[in-house]
């Protein structure tokens, strides 16, 4: 089935649900997705899976009472039954006192077509791509592990106030760890097309890091200047942004923005935006309520500048705020989140950044990041698979992994370098970042 036909079918299903729902307001979100994951470890493909599914979620509003029903559905009749179930749940619920309304339709700017049919690649094609990584590992005497995943999803959002929106998204992602006897290296690449996975380049990058990191040294944990490669920095930025610029977390007094909104908290060179139409990210013209995603400057020249909102948080803000179109799927009581983050790049190449560091670390990847204190945005995590000592502007040795515990917003106030060349990792496009005095608190044995 073509992409256009698929979107039309999902719209029909969502519309059937909305029309059948005995509620004051109704929203229906229908998502169909096809995903495949080819995993490899010890230089063989050890897991190879695929699945396809279609799910409908109906949110029914009766007064200020809300019910949500979700299910795997195939037909319009099943959609109507789900809608009636949502309305029944709403009648059983009690009020959400500060709920105002589902959103009304707004024009959605056209977005470039992002459907890449190569993301529906065959099992054989995916195996061919993965084998490029396996062969690189074997040739270098390394052990590879990783995964190639492809994802095609179509979504339709319809509500009883007139919203009708649909889009298709494709994503291909390849990541690998190359392991030597006492070292490892990591690399990843992704984008809307299989070509974005650049398997040879990813394999070579990870292999080179594993080889460079042999015979790692131990360092005493202490504050150090760190160059974070984009895949590592993306995790830090994403964690900070998801929690910190989330209007509900702000309204519930759990966000750092409660103390820092409007203040120069980051370096003046740091600008962070969320923009569903930025071509460097996965085009996201509207959110899960069908509201067009606005471009939001979250941090502007170092000033904590703005939050993201959905219809609920916008209406309950004091004074009411503009709905920026950042709703997550219902039922959601986490709040809205930015999912098209862009860190404005700087002027320097990665080599220039390395050359600028007298003594510090290059960190390729982060493991098990978690929030120790949300209001202070204290994060902890480990480095992994490619941590290197920089001495007098050169990578000189692999380093055994370190734990950091750091106040992330304040760390961005010590931003000493921004790369020129960015990469997309998940919800973030960003260049390498150099942060001074990044706090390492302990070390591990490998």
């Amino acid at each position, binding site marked *: 089935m073509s992409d256009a036909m698929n979107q039309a079918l999902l719209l029909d299903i969502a519309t059937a649900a909305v029309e059948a729902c005995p509620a004051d307001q109704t929203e229906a979100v229908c998502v169909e997705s096809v995903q495949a994951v080819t995993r490899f470890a010890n230089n063989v493909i050890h897991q190879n899976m695929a699945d396809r599914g279609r799910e409908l979620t109906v949110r029914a509003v009766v007064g200020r009472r*809300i019910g949500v029903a979700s299910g795997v559905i195939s037909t319009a009749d099943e959609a109507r039954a789900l809608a009636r179930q949502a309305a029944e749940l709403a009648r059983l619920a*009690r009020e959400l006192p500060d709920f105002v309304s589902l959103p009304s339709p707004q024009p959605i700017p056209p977005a470039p077509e992002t459907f890449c049919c190569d993301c529906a690649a065959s*099992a054989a094609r995916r195996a061919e791509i993965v084998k490029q990584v396996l062969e690189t590992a074997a040739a270098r005497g390394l052990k590879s592990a990783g995964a190639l995943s492809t994802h095609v999803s179509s979504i339709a959002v319809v509500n009883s106030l007139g919203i009708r929106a649909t889009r298709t998204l494709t994503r291909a992602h390849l990541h690998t760890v190359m392991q030597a006897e006492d070292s490892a290296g990591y690399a990843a690449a992704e984008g809307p097309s299989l070509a974005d996975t650049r398997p040879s380049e990813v394999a070579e990058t990870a292999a080179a890091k594993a080889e460079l990191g042999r015979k790692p040294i131990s360092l005493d944990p202490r504050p150090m200047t760190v160059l974070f490669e984009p895949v590592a920095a993306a995790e830090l930025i994403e964690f900070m942004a998801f929690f910190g610029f989330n209007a509900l977390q702000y309204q*519930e007094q759990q966000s750092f923005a409660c103390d820092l909104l409007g203040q120069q908290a980051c370096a003046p060179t740091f600008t962070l935006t969320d923009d569903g139409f930025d071509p460097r990210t996965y085009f996201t013209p509207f959110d899960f309520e069908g509201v067009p995603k606005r471009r939001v400057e979250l941090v502007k020249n170092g000033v904590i500048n703005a939050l993201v909102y959905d219809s609920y948080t916008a209406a309950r803000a004091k004074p009411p705020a503009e709905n920026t179109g950042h709703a997550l799927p219902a*039922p959601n009581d986490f709040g809205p989140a930015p999912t098209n983050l862009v860190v404005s790049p700087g002027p320097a190449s990665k080599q220039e950044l390395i050359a600028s560091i007298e003594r510090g670390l290059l960190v390729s990847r982060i493991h098990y990041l978690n929030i120790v204190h949300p209001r202070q945005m204290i994060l902890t995590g*480990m480095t992994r698979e490619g941590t290197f000592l920089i001495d007098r502007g050169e990578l000189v040795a692999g380093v055994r992994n370190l734990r950091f515990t750091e106040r992330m917003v304040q760390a961005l106030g010590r931003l000493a370098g921004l790369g020129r060349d960015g990469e997309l990792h998940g919800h973030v496009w960003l260049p390498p970042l150099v942060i001074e005095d990044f706090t390492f608190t302990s070390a*591990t044995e490998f």
Partner: protein
Amino acid sequence: MALRELAELALGAALTAGATYADARFVRRCHQVVSVKNGGVSRMAFAEGAGLGVRVIARGAWGFAATSVLSEASVRGAARQAVELAEAAASSICEPVELAPVEPAVAEVPTCAQIDPFRVPAAEKLDLLMACDAAMDIPGIVVRQAETNAWREEKFFASSEGARIYQERLVTQVEVVATAAGNGEVQRRSWPSSHGGELQARGWEIIEPLSLPARAAEIAREAVELLRADQCPKGRMDIILEGSQLALQLHESCGHPVELDRVLGTEASFAGTSFLTPDKLGTFRYGSEAVNIVADPTIPGAAGSFAYDDEGVQARVADIVRNGIFVGYLNSRETARKLGLDLVPAMRADGWNRLPLVRMTNVNLLPGAAGSLADLLRDTDEGLLLVANKSWSIDDRRLNFQFACELGYRIKNGQLAGLVRNPTYQGMTPQFWASCDAICGEDEWKVWGVPNCGKGEPMQIMQVGHGVAPARFRQVMVGVAD
């Protein structure tokens, strides 16, 4: 066509397409959440779905495909696709997959739940949650949350070896959380534990003993008190971990590193590997002599329990650590065969559209001889009692860890002597468990449910259990995140 017949059809189609082994898992799930926040109903939701997953070995490699369209054509298609995926993988392998033998079982296993949580009227649930909400409504509290979840899962497993196993599972969960804010500080308290509260593979009968509204009032007062409490001290101290925090400690530092698939490298690119390499089996000192850890999926109603795992292997108890020595892994038919080990059933999949992985079941620290928590406190001159997890992090071989808790109590001369806020502690797994010198007894032992253990690509979420009694650890580094 009936669902069991569809499973048979899938097996037939897989074998016809060239599989040498096949299993089919039909799963139907439903989930209900009722959530109250700040006096309003923030979530009243129900989700249901069903589908069939087919796992095969063809040309010596694994393949897996799933479908939620339960028609003959779609099921046949999924089976053929699984074989196609296996054949694509086969071009990369050097050694074919081999499985440890298992006697194929035929069984029907109902839930042990007494009161079906889905039959409890919504009004009754809302009355309870609203009562908790009201109890937490005191000055200083900015967010009041009370939530209950229920899950039902019906699973039918069939294999080309003849296994035919039906299992039903009902799970009930409830949690209350009070968040206080003031003077730039935020503090949270949860009951009965954090990150999911009380979770058991039982029915609504778990609710009444929890005394939720009364406890909700207590935690609200504690959250407000924490705003003014002293910051956690820094340095090395003796710590006692309360049960829910110890459960998570056990989860991260023992449960994960004994998953044999991790050990053998198959999770290296994402979740990581393990420091408990096969050369250590039977000889490595994991902890002090007081430390005995078992995997036990047979405990009725525990979050990680089952009668048969998702390879059709019957549940049994297995030693993991005995008198401090590492002696066993959680494994699968493939990984057990690789190392010549006895099967320790642990293959579990999150729904019909995920293939099974080696997962925790109930990984339990056996009770010790230290009596009650009060006894243990009296026996401790100075230290901290740490309660309810706030955050956790550990390295990718499961050595270096750091935890934050919701609150701590100073211990002085065997007595609790004031609250501390933002307590954190850090350590290395074997040294930490070697410092365990006292574990409370059976009367303090409880199986805690952990609702959201993540693993795999694509991600799978699993409910697991950890039976623990509070325990003491000597000279642990605390106050590491100030």
